[in-house]
């Protein structure tokens, strides 16, 4: 909390930063008091990361000045920032996969050290802040929460006076988030200021003392997040009123359209997670969610379902009752299974190709965009145009290269490309990852409408809010194992969190008490009846 009479720990005055064609920061001013937890709130592209890079010395401001404890300073590089006492935990961790935790920590220090001394100090910090982490493990064996702890320990070793956290919770389980917040509150109580960057409003309300809201590079408001509603902050953030996803609670689902039985598949790449005996089913008109922390088999699940793992999978997949495990990717698409992978660039779309070409890539069977080995270019372009207008994609036209679109617009195009094919089954992974709130709302609405039209949707996401808003049932994937399905109505977030953290069976079930008696899965009955 701000102390009377003392200068703010960090103050920005009129910071302006231009990139070719973009004004990233426009006359931004705000200040952070010692021991304050200050939120920096804004959409993607609002200028948060540019601002933080200026504070951390990665970029230099074109205009304006930075004051540290009341003194104007120039921060030439991250080293200078660390010397002042600024620590930073990046959204994408700066970690070295093949090295140990301790080596990673050593690399983040500016001065030399003796191994023994470092080991001692790291051990002390882990104990003081009660952070579970084994210094001798190699990073690629760690969970995302543990990786983040490495970054935090790295920063704490420098005894920072200001700690910048860039979207720290986007990859954590609810329990890990709670643990992180405890650590942050403790640091703040010790006088360390925290600059907390996020677009998750409920977290900011739970944690922060002050919020500065950025939009289009400008400060649009500074407020006390506890006195604002999440909705009012969201509207300040996007500069428009928010549209709600309208969805009628589904009870009368159609027949089963997708059924997966005993599906197992090897992990992808050296750090992949093998799938173990996955069973699930999705009915017409239903949205089924797969929750879980990144890297627990989601990529493998999508790949196995759409047919990208050829020959290595066992078990079976039924599309409208037809066994499809042997069908190739293209055949499965033709038969009605469309998909949107997590990675837009390079997996969902070819960045260098035009939108028309990208439309042909997945829609050629169902929309008849190719015949006898030739592309029907006119039809393809028309289809791309149709997607662009139906999904309000901001692009110069169907000939625009996919790479020229912003993340949100490209995602809308990819979603539209699949949805307009009227798939029987749609499998989507992280549909709103890195997409702004406006586009996210449009994508959510499109998914709900598609389900209402009778498609079966499998939604893989790390965003619990998204899953709870859209899904009828949810299962959690952890270490390649899928939990039992939970009805979203009356679901216990705590239980989902425990499942995400890998607590299966007795423990997790015991905590699901607020759901009352575990209901008999209607699906099971249906299966037995069949």
């Amino acid at each position, binding site marked *: 909390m701000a102390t009377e009479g003392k200068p703010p720990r960090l103050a920005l005055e009129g910071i302006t930063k231009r990139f070719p064609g973009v004004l990233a920061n426009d006359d931004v001013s705000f200040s952070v008091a010692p021991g304050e937890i200050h939120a920096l709130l804004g959409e993607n592209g609002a200028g948060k990361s*540019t601002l933080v*890079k200026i504070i951390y010395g*990665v*970029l230099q401001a074109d205009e304006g000045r930075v004051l540290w404890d009341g003194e104007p300073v120039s921060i030439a*590089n*991250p*080293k200078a920032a*660390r010397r002042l006492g600024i620590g930073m935990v*990046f959204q994408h*961790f*700066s*970690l*070295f*996969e*093949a*090295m140990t935790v301790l*080596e990673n920590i*050593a*690399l*983040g220090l*500016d001065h*030399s050290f003796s191994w023994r001394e470092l080991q001692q100090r790291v051990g002390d910090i882990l104990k003081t802040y009660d952070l579970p982490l084994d210094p001798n493990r190699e990073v*690629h064996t760690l969970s995302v929460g543990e990786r983040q702890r490495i970054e935090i320990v790295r920063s704490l070793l420098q005894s920072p006076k200001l700690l910048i956290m860039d979207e720290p919770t986007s990859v954590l389980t609810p329990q890990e988030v709670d643990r992180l917040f405890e650590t942050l509150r403790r640091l703040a109580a010790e006088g360390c200021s925290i600059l907390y960057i996020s677009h998750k409003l409920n977290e900011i309300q739970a944690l922060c003392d002050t919020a500065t809201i950025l939009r289009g590079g400008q400060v649009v408001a500074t407020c006390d997040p506890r006195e604002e509603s999440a909705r009012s902050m969201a509207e300040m953030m996007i500069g428009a009123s928010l549209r709600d996803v309208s969805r009628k609670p589904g009870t009368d689902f159609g027949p089963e359209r997708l059924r997966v039985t005993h599906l197992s598949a090897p*992990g992808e790449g*050296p*750090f*992949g997670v093998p799938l173990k005996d996955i069973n699930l089913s999705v009915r017409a008109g239903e949205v089924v969610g797969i929750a879980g922390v990144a890297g627990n088999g989601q990529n493998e699940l999508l790949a196995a379902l759409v047919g990208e793992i050829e020959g290595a999978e066992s078990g079976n997949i039924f599309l409208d009752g037809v066994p499809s495990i042997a069908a190739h990717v293209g055949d499965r698409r033709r038969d009605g299974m469309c998909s949107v992978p997590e990675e837009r660039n390079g997996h969902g779309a070819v960045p260098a190709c035009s939108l028309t070409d990208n439309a042909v890539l997945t829609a050629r069977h169902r929309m008849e965009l190719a015949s006898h080995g030739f592309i029907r270019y006119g039809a393809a372009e028309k289809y791309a145009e149709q997607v662009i207008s139906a999904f309000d994609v901001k692009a110069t036209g169907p000939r625009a290269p996919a790479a020229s679109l912003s993340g949100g617009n490209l995602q809308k195009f990819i979603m539209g490309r699949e949805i307009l094919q009227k798939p029987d089954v749609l499998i989507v992974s992280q549909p709103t990852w890195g997409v702004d709130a406006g586009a996210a709302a449009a994508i959510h609405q499109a998914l709900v409408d598609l389900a209402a039209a009778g498609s079966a949707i499998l939604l893989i996401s790390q965003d619990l809010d998204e899953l709870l808003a859209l899904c009828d049932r949810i299962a959690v994937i952890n270490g390649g194992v899928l939990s039992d399905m939970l009805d979203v109505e009356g679901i216990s977030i705590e239980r989902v969190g425990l499942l995400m953290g890998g607590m299966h069976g007795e423990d997790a079930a015991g905590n699901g008490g607020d759901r009352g008696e575990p209901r008999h899965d209607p699906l099971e009955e249906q299966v037995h009846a069949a």
Partner: protein
Amino acid sequence: MTTAILISIIMTLVGAATPILLAALGELVVEKSGVLNLGLEGMMLIGAVTAFGVTFTTGSASLGLVAAMAAGAAASMIFAFLTLTLTANQVATGLALTIFGIGLSSLIGQNFVGRTVSGLEHIFPAALADDPIGRVVFGYSPLVYLSLVMTAFVAWFLTRSRAGLILRAIGESDEAAHSIGYSVIRVRYLAVAFGGAMAGLGGAYYSLVMTPMWADRLTAGRGWIALALVVFASWRPLRLLGGAYLFGAVMTLELHAKAAGINIVPPEFLAMLPYLATIVVLTLISIAPSGRRNAAPACLGKPFRATG
């Protein structure tokens, strides 16, 4: 087999192994920093001809050695400028460097063909090398001992020193290293220069120690073997030492088999053994459980552009 033959086998083996060990040590450090320099053969040839030329004109072999290292490093700087500063494709640039090195060494060496120089002096008194056992231990060129010292140094540098830790980190993830605040490009320049100097030294071994006489394409493709050796050793200095002597043994086997009149396997088969062994090792690395697969630096061969 008499002792004399055994000793001569060991000595030719060490002789064949040393230059590829020197060059491969340099390349190991380069690759650990995330750069793939396929110009090894070219830099070795440039080093070889420079060593010969300087020794021939000044009469000092040690001056020749220093010049060879400088020339190798200079040649590697062409590569570094193209690939690191201008972010050109490393594979294409490395191949071009090899072709360039072959041509340049032929051009410079034109007037030296068939000439001889007095090679590098031994460091141990000749008396020590009189008896056969003494010869196996003390009877080599100083470069042989240097290559052993350098192996130990590189092993220590990579695993024990802070600079080595940074270098490995940059090879693992240039982006992460950059965001922490390390100068990726500067470290890679230094690594490539070291690699060039070591390649020059390896080349000098051919023109000053092995055959103190100039002939066109003196290194005869050994640069490629050194490249294969780095992969064969899965980027570990001590395995590199073992691999170099193994490759050296295979290369000399050919000669000794011929000398002994053994004709069971065609010599061409023996000549291809090092490459075959490398393919086998690559296969083994690929089918190994995932934990051991990350032997190759993750950023090997990827261009790095510093962004915001």
